[in-house]
């Protein structure tokens, strides 16, 4: 039963909506799924975050809090212009300044790092770097270098229109506009012909910035030819691979550590300029080096959610049945980025036989995009859900009724079932909690220029997770338990959730179990914490490792208790005999085992074939709009999501709050502004790029449909981190439209845009 060897098989797996052939590991055994009826005592309860004490006492050490003996500080000099060639730079003046240890400029970093190039493609691009004894010394020297920069300026394009114009300047040498990605199913022409009602709208979304409070940063230290990297990252193994490749060294000589992290939201998935800068200076100077983005660099050059223009045609019969959905989207990516666009949700959220999406990615001279919580789906949901709400008005149908009439019952992209999809129950539960049938949108009586409105929107997001992920569960001689998995906790609660899963599977008391994460050298591999995947990817590996350890524990107990193993079970850190009342606490059992250490091994098996695994949900918003000032106040949000089993309801609720509040900022005020003439971002701080404060937040009623997705994986849990941000903005926009009596087609809904919508 133990000591199993895994088999490797070739299979097709889904990655970011695409199908790939991969070799995956088939674990020798998979535990029986925890069903909705399985009695569980720790999973499904809400013990406090295991690292909360460190966080409330200020003792949690984040990357910027790491201090190493003799540590130096590095600052990167960035381009103040959007496009051109760096023709002159003076590094020598900076070298003579107090405290300065080294300066690096164009041509001095290995090609693999792509650092310090003379051809400039966006404002904020790294051009040089300084290492000094103190951060202040490094900053002063960086200013001196910055003043010496001379450019041969070239025309830039920082807007979609400028980059697509017939006489547009070259943003990149390989062209500005990527060939459209067109995905079609059914016969759209026929679907349009069959419709009773067809509406076409254009929706616009803005560039949003992640704005994690902890900026990107790294501390690097060499010991001989071994490099240790402390990095604020969502993917320690990805950082290791990036650094090894860029510096041309074996992965085994790079150790990446990450203990605490001040948020990521998708922007921290690999090594960056700060990592390479710190590593290179540390190698040259033989001392540890810390390089942390300042806020301006963070807001200019650490990624963003790109803007979008979505031209949507939606066609339906009089009874609301959708007959065609057409999207023509244009997305200005920045200087680089991957193409996860707004189109996918158009294929997934509703039953519709005829769908065509066209996504055109356009490069512009601005910082490159990075995944940002629900990338593509957040932008797409604003277009799709706003169009659905417009269609409901056109049909004089209730927008919830319209959605329930068009529920997707299968994944129509490849015609396969869902592992579980209870979106209709989310609508029903949400309507009940919101009082949808009884909430009128009449203006409140107190103030005649304040109007009230309500709106709804829905969400889908692929959350199956998958292999590879590995975990070990170690039972120490005092019966304390270590869970070892090379994953990371962004603030989501992964440490807590994985300890809960292990404690449950092992039959151990929760407070005897701790999860050890964030070290590439000493922990087994797991993938990046992205795509809402950590719980569904790593959770099953941890459960399997704990089940393996439990079996070994029972085998040992059977010998000691002289009972058949079938007669034994575990609970509360005790081995219990079913046939009699004998009990052997883990602590006594381990004492008898001496220094023998039980180590359970677990891995994440493949997902079930031909099944779509998604988290779905619906959100309802109520707002007040002052039609004289244009100010929108969100009064309340009701959110109901189906993510399968919820391991820790309180922590998961925090995730819903976070997604909704970020979605509120996206709906109402978050927007990167860029000067079209100069090509430079204007609001690179947390005052002018406004994120929600406590004063902005509404009453939030966030809940789950509790259950277990036994098809998805044997823990029954799907992901929940990204889904809650997806429907918030269109729900708020719908409520604003309801209050105003006119459609709103562009976010953020700043007072100017609200007043503009009224005079249109």
């Amino acid at each position, binding site marked *: 039963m133990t000591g199993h060897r895994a088999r490797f098989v070739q299979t097709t797996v889904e990655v970011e909506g695409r199908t790939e052939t991969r070799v995956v590991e088939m674990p020798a055994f998979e535990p029986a799924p925890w069903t909705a009826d399985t009695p569980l005592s720790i999973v499904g309860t809400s013990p406090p975050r295991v690292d909360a004490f460190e966080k409330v006492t*200020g003792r949690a*050490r984040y990357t910027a809090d790491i201090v190493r003996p003799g540590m130096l500080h590095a600052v990167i000099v960035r381009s103040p212009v959007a496009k051109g060639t760096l023709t002159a730079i003076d590094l020598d003046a900076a070298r003579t300044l107090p405290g300065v240890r080294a300066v690096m400029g164009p041509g001095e970093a290995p090609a693999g790092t792509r650092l310090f190039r003379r051809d400039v493609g966006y404002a904020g691009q790294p051009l040089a770097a300084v290492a000094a004894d103190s951060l202040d010394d490094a900053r002063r020297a960086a200013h001196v270098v910055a003043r010496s920069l001379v450019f041969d300026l070239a025309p830039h394009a920082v807007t979609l229109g400028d980059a697509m114009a017939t006489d547009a300047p070259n943003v990149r040498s390989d062209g500005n506009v990527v060939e459209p990605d067109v995905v079609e199913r059914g016969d759209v022409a026929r679907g349009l012909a069959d419709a009773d009602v067809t509406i076409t709208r254009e929706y616009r979304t803005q560039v949003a910035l992640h704005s994690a409070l902890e900026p990107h940063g790294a501390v690097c230290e060499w010991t001989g030819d071994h490099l240790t990297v402390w990095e604020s990252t969502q993917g320690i193994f990805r950082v290791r691979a990036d650094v090894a490749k860029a510096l041309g060294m074996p992965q085994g000589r790079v150790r990446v550590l990450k203990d605490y992290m*001040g948020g990521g939201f998708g922007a921290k998935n690999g090594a960056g300029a700060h990592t390479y800068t710190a590593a290179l200076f540390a190698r040259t100077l033989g001392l540890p080096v810390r390089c942390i983005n300042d806020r301006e660099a963070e807001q200019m050059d650490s990624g963003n959610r790109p803007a979008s223009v979505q031209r949507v045609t939606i066609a339906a019969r009089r009874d609301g049945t959708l007959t065609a959905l057409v999207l023509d989207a244009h997305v200005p990516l920045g200087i680089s980025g991957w193409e996860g666009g707004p189109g996918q949700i158009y294929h997934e959220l509703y039953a519709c036989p005829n769908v065509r999406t066209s996504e055109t990615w356009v490069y512009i001279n601005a910082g490159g995009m990075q995944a940002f919580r629900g990338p593509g789906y957040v932008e797409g949901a604003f277009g799709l859900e706003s169009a659905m709400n417009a269609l409901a008005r056109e049909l004089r149908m209730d927008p919830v009724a319209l959605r329930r009439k068009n529920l997707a019952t299968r994944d129509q992209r490849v015609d396969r079932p869902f592992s579980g999809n209870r979106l209709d129950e989310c609508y029903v539960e949400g309507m009940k909690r919101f009082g949808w049938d009884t909430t009128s949108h009449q203006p409140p009586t107190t103030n005649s220029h304040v109007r009230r409105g309500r709106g709804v929107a829905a969400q889908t997001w692929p959350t199956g997770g998958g292999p590879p992920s590995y975990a070990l569960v170690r039972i120490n001689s005092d019966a304390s338990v270590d869970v070892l998995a090379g994953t990371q906790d962004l603030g989501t609660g992964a440490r807590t959730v994985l300890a809960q899963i292990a404690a449950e599977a092992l039959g151990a008391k929760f407070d005897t179990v701790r999860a050890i994460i964030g070290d590439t050298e000493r922990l087994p591999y797991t993938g990046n914490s992205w795509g809402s995947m950590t719980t569904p990817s790593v959770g099953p590996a941890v459960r399997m490792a704990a089940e393996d350890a439990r079996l070994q524990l029972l085998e040992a107990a059977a010998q000691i208790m002289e009972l058949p193993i079938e007669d034994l079970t575990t609970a509360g850190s005790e081995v219990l005999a079913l046939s009699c009342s004998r009990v052997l606490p883990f602590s006594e059992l381990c004492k008898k085992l001496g220094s023998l250490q039980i180590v359970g091994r677990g891995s994440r098996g493949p997902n079930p074939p031909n099944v779509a695994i998604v988290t779905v949900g619906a959100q309802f918003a109520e707002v007040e709009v002052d039609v004289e000032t244009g100010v929108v106040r969100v009064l309340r949000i009701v959110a109901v999501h189906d993510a399968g089993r919820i391991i820790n309801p309180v922590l998961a609720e925090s995730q819903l709050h976070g997604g909704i509040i970020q979605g509120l900022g996206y709906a109402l005020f978050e927007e990167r502004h860029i000067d079209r003439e100069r090509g430079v971002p204007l609001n690179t701080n947390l005052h002018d790029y406004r994120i929600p*404060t406590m004063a902005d937040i509404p009453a939030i009623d966030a809940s789950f449909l509790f259950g277990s997705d036994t098809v998805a994986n044997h823990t029954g849990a799907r992901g929940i981190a990204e889904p809650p941000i997806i429907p918030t903005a269109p729900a708020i926009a719908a409520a604003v439209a309801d209050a105003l009596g006119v459609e709103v087609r562009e976010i953020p809904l700043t007072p100017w845009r609200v007043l503009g919508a009224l005079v249109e």
Partner: protein
Amino acid sequence: MKLTVNGTLREVDAARSPTLLAALRDQLDLTGSKLVCDRGECGACTVRLDGDLVYACLTLTAACENAQVQTVEGLASGNELHPLQQAFISHDAAQCGFCTPGQLVTAAALLERLPNPSDGDIRAAMSGNLCRCGTYPKIIAAIRAVADERGAAT
């Protein structure tokens, strides 16, 4: 120069660390207070200076001679957590935790000033402390719980 930090007399070199935040973090190894915006926008570096709430990133070290400074590290008495720290734990009022020290220092000052704040008072007092994880509802709940418990006890 000398100043009292969390009840202990300490010596710092103001020339080496122009801002109080840098002095606390780099010279006294009190890294609970965070550098986030470096311009008084986010509240992650909030500390008490002679009882007043200040942004340590905008406070000159040289202006703190002989002052009383309290940071998040000074909230607990030994191993006994401040009631707000306990409430932040039990209400899950810290996600990534990066803003948490500033939130706690601000909340502690609020409850000293207004032992029984309304929700409006809490929102007004706390709205200078940004949280990107969106933990606000639980921060409100944690502060509310401490205020209510104290109210019930008196």
